[in-house]
């Protein structure tokens, strides 16, 4: 086992935020301390925030090399994008 503490990715939902956003990463020996450290490093203890930590090793990322295969097909097909519907005011956050 490496002597280095594992890397954790930190996601925080701010007081009025709708979703958790990735804010950065940190090293910690376990999840409990990762949350504690995230609070000290990233939240300045604002109240009403929610913190998620996840081991960086548990995150699977798409490869930049796959960009074309993954995302390109839909770009040239406007009919795939539901942009033609008028949206009601109430759902502007959608």
């Amino acid at each position: 086992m490496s002597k280095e503490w594992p890397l954790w990715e930190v996601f925080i939902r701010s007081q009025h935020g709708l979703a958790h956003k990735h804010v950065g990463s940190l090293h910690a020996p376990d999840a409990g301390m990762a949350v504690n450290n995230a609070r000290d490093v990233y939240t300045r203890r604002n109240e009403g925030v929610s913190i998620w930590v996840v081991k960086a090793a548990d995150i699977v990322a798409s490869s930049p090399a796959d960009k074309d295969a993954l995302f390109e097909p839909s770009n040239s097909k406007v009919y795939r994008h539901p942009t033609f519907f008028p949206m009601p005011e109430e759902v502007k956050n959608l």
Partner: protein
Amino acid sequence: MDARFDYLLRQGDNALILSQQLSQLCGKGPALEEDMALTNVALDLLGQTRMWLTYAGEVEGAGRDEDRLAYLRDVRAFRNCLLVEQPNGDYAQVMVRQFFFDTWHYFLMRALLASSDRRIAEIAEKSIKEVTYHLRRSGDLVVRLGDGTEASHARMQAAVDALWTYTGEFFVYDEVERAMLAQGVAPAPDALRAAFLQHVGEVFEEATLRMPDPEAYMQRGGKQGRHGERLGYLLAEMQFLQRAYPGAEW
């Protein structure tokens, strides 16, 4: 001396001296994240110091503000407990000192929420969230280090045994405490002591640390201004600029 002024100085000086000691560890924590946490605690305590000393200055009514009280008093006028002036030492000593202080501090602040002095109750209310976090954090680290490796356990036990003698002073019942209790300002020290011993006992059991004898000999004197020789050096460093350039605006 006015008992209330003295009582406020005790609270302010505890937070001030411990904050100063923790500040000295800035950049020296065992990990970046610990470094941040320690300095956060130091800043919390300094914020509390400012509230206590500002109010103390108002109660005294002699025109001394937080700065004059922090920077222009000499050793004998400081009212902090001996525990907080103990050297940082290794990280075990830092955390055990913090844990003892946080435990007492937490139960005191909780009791002060019901103080008959509204300003004191307000300061306690502002502090209690910070202090609750401090206690959780230092208790967590006491368990991790006590129940960690053989080496960390040995260091923690040594720190516990060395610092235990400074924990009795929290509950020393002198004329200041008596006056504050009579006025409904402060809680009875006995109730705090029972809560302190119980919490420390529970955490130590989880940390596999041996609880020292509660009836052991306890050092005292800090609350009355009789300090160890180290505090003078600490103040010399802390107060240098104000002594060299008194009255400077900053």
